[in-house]
């Protein structure tokens, strides 16, 4: 049990989310399914256990904010927001279609989405500005940002990592979706940033590294960091698998771009259960 939520509820939400995403990318021949699958458990834990927010009042001034900086993975976020009642599930059928608000990089016109992203390296500076706004006004809400590990190539992030620690923004939480792949290869082969933990610790962030598909580890990390009195901004390196959930797309570069054929779609549905 996680508070009042049992694990089955989390597993069911994760399964339904992946099935929705699989359907969305299949029906519109869209890319980035692998990037969406790697953050499903992170989103499930955030929305079911961590974030203080309410679909009935998405603009509540006191809500926690989440920015999806890796905006190309938005199909997973849209699917969860629909599951939680931010908008009708039928809207998911319009994903990536002409004149839909569900554009295939995350769009703040969608109820529950805080900020549009797409080009990488934007989410963290904006999140830092939001965290500063909360601190400046003495408000208790927190800001969470999901970045990809490939996105760490962008220099704007490092400007923000330095400034967030300088400002002691302990109301700012970053989750690195560390799926080890980026658009043209493995992250270690493009720009090797190992050892990641030491880099962030040297930047004076409070860092935990966990299995990003394990509900217990995610919950524990968020709980430990939320309760910390270190005064430092918080960062979780979530080790994940790109394409997690459908065996034949896992850890495969081409599934950054591809969508399933009819046969692959059926096979994937069976695996997703």
């Amino acid at each position: 049990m996680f508070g009042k939520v049992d694990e089955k509820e989390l597993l069911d939400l994760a399964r339904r989310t992946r099935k929705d995403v699989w359907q969305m990318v299949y029906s519109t021949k869209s890319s980035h399914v692998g990037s969406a699958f790697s953050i499903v458990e992170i989103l499930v834990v955030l929305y079911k256990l961590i974030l203080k927010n309410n679909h009935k009042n998405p603009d509540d001034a006191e809500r926690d904010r989440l920015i999806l900086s890796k905006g190309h993975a938005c199909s997973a976020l849209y699917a969860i927001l629909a599951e939680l009642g931010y908008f009708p599930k039928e809207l998911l059928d319009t994903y990536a279609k002409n004149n839909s608000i569900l554009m295939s990089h995350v769009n703040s016109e969608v109820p529950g989405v805080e900020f549009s992203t797409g080009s990488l390296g934007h989410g963290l500076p904006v999140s830092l500005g939001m965290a500063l706004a909360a601190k400046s006004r003495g408000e208790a809400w927190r800001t969470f940002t999901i970045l990809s590990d490939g996105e760490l190539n962008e220099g704007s992030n490092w400007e923000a990592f330095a400034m967030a620690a300088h400002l002691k923004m302990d109301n700012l939480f970053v989750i690195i979706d560390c799926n080890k792949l980026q658009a043209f290869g493995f992250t270690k082969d493009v720009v090797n940033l190992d050892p990641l933990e030491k880099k962030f610790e040297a930047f004076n962030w409070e860092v935990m590294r966990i299995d990003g598909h394990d509900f217990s580890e995610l919950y524990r990390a968020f709980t430990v960091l939320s309760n910390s009195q270190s005064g430092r901004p918080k960062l979780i390196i979530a080790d994940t698998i790109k394409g997690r959930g459908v065996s034949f797309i896992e850890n495969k570069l081409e599934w950054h771009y591809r969508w399933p054929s009819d046969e692959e779609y059926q096979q994937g549905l069976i695996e997703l259960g």
Partner: protein
Amino acid sequence: MRNIFIKILTEKADRDTYLVIGDLGFGIVEPFVKKNPDRFLNAGVAEQNMTGMAAGLALSGFKVFTYSIGNFNTTRCLEQIRNDICYHDLDVTIVSVGPGFMYGSQGYSHHAVQDIALMGSLPNVKLLLPGDSREVEFVMDYIFREQGPKYLRLGRNCEKVFHQESQEVSKINRFGLLADKVGEVALVAASTTLENAFSVAGLLQEKGIAAEVFSCPIIDDDFSDNVRRALDGFKNVFVIEEHISSLGLAAFVRNAFDGREKMIKVFGLKRDSCKVVGNRDYLCEHHEISPSLVAASISKMLNKSRI
């Protein structure tokens, strides 16, 4: 101009106003900091983060100003301005000091000569191009009245005042001071070239040509209507811009007359020789936008057309 900007900003600022600087403004911004220490941040030499943070602050209800010089808070962080501020229609004013060749001898890294074209192409942006301190007052009222993204191009010193005390400032200003007859030549200027335009008008007067000066401190949705109305009846319109020729103020003037017959001649900067370095007067000569060269050129053109 910088000082009056900070003076007014400091007076008008409330608890919802935030100033973020890019490690510049020494000797200028201190009055604001003194009054509002907890609504001020030096974001360091990191303009991408500064601009993203400004968007985050604005999303959370602040009226935000980013302050730097030259190109540093425009071209360096253009995508943050485009995606984070403009597409989200956030209430951020990008204040850039020292446009054109105001930092001429510092080298072309400091020449802000593409800024109007770049900022003016972004969604929801209002361009604020004050030419004297009265116009700074005017645009500051506008900034505090209107929501949304704005670009404020602020002269470095430019302390001369062209508006008479009794003259009301508006979005397009007509200075009839030097004209002894109306309707021959309109000199359209904004920001740093307002002073140039007055010098040109004086030189033309000596040659017996009556020129009137127009300034354009605000380019917003009303601009086309306003400028057409203001220039109605003028056969010869000359735009002077300290910016890549035809892509700054002149682009907006020309667009306003799109499809209508109006001779509009532009004095602006040559795109491909912008690496030349020197003080502002030297560079204005080089690009043939100095008052003497502009006046000579206009005089020649008018004499030709009279024959």
